[in-house]
């Protein structure tokens, strides 16, 4: 038997003797009188001196439980001290400006404090008593997974986007992916060790595929309004009335770019039933493409001049975007291959 335990026993016996309980305690159980801290009713048979509960022995000097100094504390005080330290939230740093405070209980961790205190009561001075913390690895993983879904960001490629009908250049942005396994492991390890030092969540950085675009302008085609808007870096420069595809040959909606520019183009019949019986038309006054052709990345669709100015303002073409001859020439001077062309429904 170790020294503190022996001392405790001697202390308890002395206390019992002083209270004069030798007779009355014969019926009552010894454990009852040892743990109770409230004064019990004096037994009616012995009205002399009320019984005094034994004072529990303090834990030996220098003992720690789960890293908490409990030396010299009574077991009840030690339990409270260990609980207080254990229930402190675990700070998880997700970004330089944001820290989440995790409650160990919510992550499914459970500390066996009574067991650790039991060991501390009989520990020699200076002993390090570990605190057993049961953790649920799957619950921590699940938590980190859910958190990561909120924190993960896709990489954004630099590109030209529409806001309403207005194009604007969007800069590239790095994406990030939470290192889930490492995060879950760090949390689990901290809980196991009863450590509450901030844990930094780590990320894998995702590089955008397109780092930058040079925005020099864009063409926006409003299909149902039959308008073509030309933008440069500063903003809207000009707006034109155009003809777009009739309902049976609608101009396709979407994001395209100019892939082909020709002055005084030949017209070749596209592989479509309306052009089945047509022959190629050389450049000249009757050419259906007028004097300029700006082909889009949409197949067989382009912006071109038209000798049929009366169709401007209507959905009359076979899918192409018709402009007045002079307007098409103006636009041709300002667009370039690779310039974005947005076709929107409005």
């Amino acid at each position, binding site marked *: 038997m170790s020294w503190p335990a022996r001392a405790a026993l001697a202390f308890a016996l002395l206390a019992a003797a002083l209270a004069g309980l030798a007779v009355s305690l014969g019926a009552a159980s010894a454990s009852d009188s040892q743990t109770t801290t409230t004064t019990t009713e004096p037994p009616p048979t012995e009205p002399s001196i009320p019984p005094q509960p034994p004072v529990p022995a303090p834990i030996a000097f220098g003992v720690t439980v789960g890293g908490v100094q409990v030396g010299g504390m009574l077991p009840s005080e030690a339990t409270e001290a260990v609980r207080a330290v254990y229930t402190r939230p675990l700070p998880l740093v997700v970004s330089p400006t944001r820290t989440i405070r995790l409650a160990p209980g919510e992550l499914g961790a459970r500390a066996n404090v009574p067991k650790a205190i039991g060991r501390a009561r009989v520990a020699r001075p200076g002993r390090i008593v570990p605190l057993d913390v049961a953790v649920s690895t799957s619950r921590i993983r699940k938590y980190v997974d859910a958190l990561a879904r909120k924190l993960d960001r896709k990489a954004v490629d630099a590109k030209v986007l529409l806001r*309403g*009908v*207005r194009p604007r250049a969007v800069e590239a942005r790095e994406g990030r992916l939470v290192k889930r396994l490492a995060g879950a492991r760090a949390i689990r390890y901290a809980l196991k060790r009863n450590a509450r030092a901030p844990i930094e969540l780590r990320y894998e950085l995702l590089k955008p595929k397109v780092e930058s675009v040079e925005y020099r302008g864009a063409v926006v085609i*409003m299909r149902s*309004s039959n*308008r073509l*808007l030309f933008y440069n870096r500063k*903003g*809207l*420069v*000009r*707006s*034109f*009335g155009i003809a777009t595809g009739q309902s049976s040959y609608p101009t396709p909606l979407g994001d395209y770019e100019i892939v082909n520019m020709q002055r005084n183009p030949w017209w070749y019949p596209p592989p479509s039933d309306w052009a089945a019986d047509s022959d190629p038309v050389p450049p000249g006054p009757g050419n259906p493409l007028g004097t300029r052709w700006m082909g889009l990345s949409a197949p067989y669709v382009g912006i071109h001049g038209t000798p049929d100015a009366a169709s401007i303002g209507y959905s009359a073409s076979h899918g192409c975007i018709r402009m007045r001859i002079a307007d098409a020439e103006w636009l041709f001077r300002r667009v370039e291959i690779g310039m974005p062309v947005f076709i929107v429904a*409005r």
Partner: protein
Amino acid sequence: MISLERRDGHPLRIGHRGAAALAPENTLRAFRAAVEAGVDLVEFDVLDLGGGELVVAHSYDLREVSHGALTGTILGRTLDGVRVDCPELPSLDEALAFFVEEAPGVGLHLDVKSASAVPRIASALRALDLVERSLATSFEHRALRRLAELEPGVRTGISFPADRAGVHGRHGTARLVRGALRAFRAVTPRLVPRLLARAGATAFVVHHALATPATVRTAHALGAAVVTWTVRDPRDLARVDDAGVDAIVVDDPTIFVSTLQT
């Protein structure tokens, strides 16, 4: 050229400085509020800052441009400089882009405050293909003549009466103004032919107190539409509607629904 005549027996609805009762006047926010309220045209003021930059503002008074936040003047300042105080102040280009991008079915009513702005207004309207959707009005007949020379497709209207002394809206002048308008009311029909001819205008843009049936008859006989400003009282609205005006400028476009059920 934009049609200003009544449609299906109803006058056209014009939002004053956007919709001055619904949002800060002469801002894109006010334009949006007007378009949402279903106006046929949006009225706004075009001012030359002095250095050639055109903005949508009623006067050089910074108190007015900043919607009461500051005092001073914007004359001679740059657009970027004024924007520090009034971040919502639209340039003319931005205002016109709004009508192309966001409100393709709505007409423009440009109130030309600076005659020096006319050439740039003409070229801007042409570039954005807004000529056929625009009415330009002014108190300055020379500005309207110049605009018609540069861009004959824009419809023009002469505004009357000009408040040259700036008494309107000033404290304690309400009775004076009312008295003057009453005196003007009788003579206005006789002035209409000369005012229209001098400006070469095809619209007569008149204060609602002077929009009498006689004035409307005279203008219509000359082939001019009558636009009246700025109606705030439902009784005035009913009166000018009865007088037969073609278009009504209002601060709050919802007044049409509550008063005329249009």
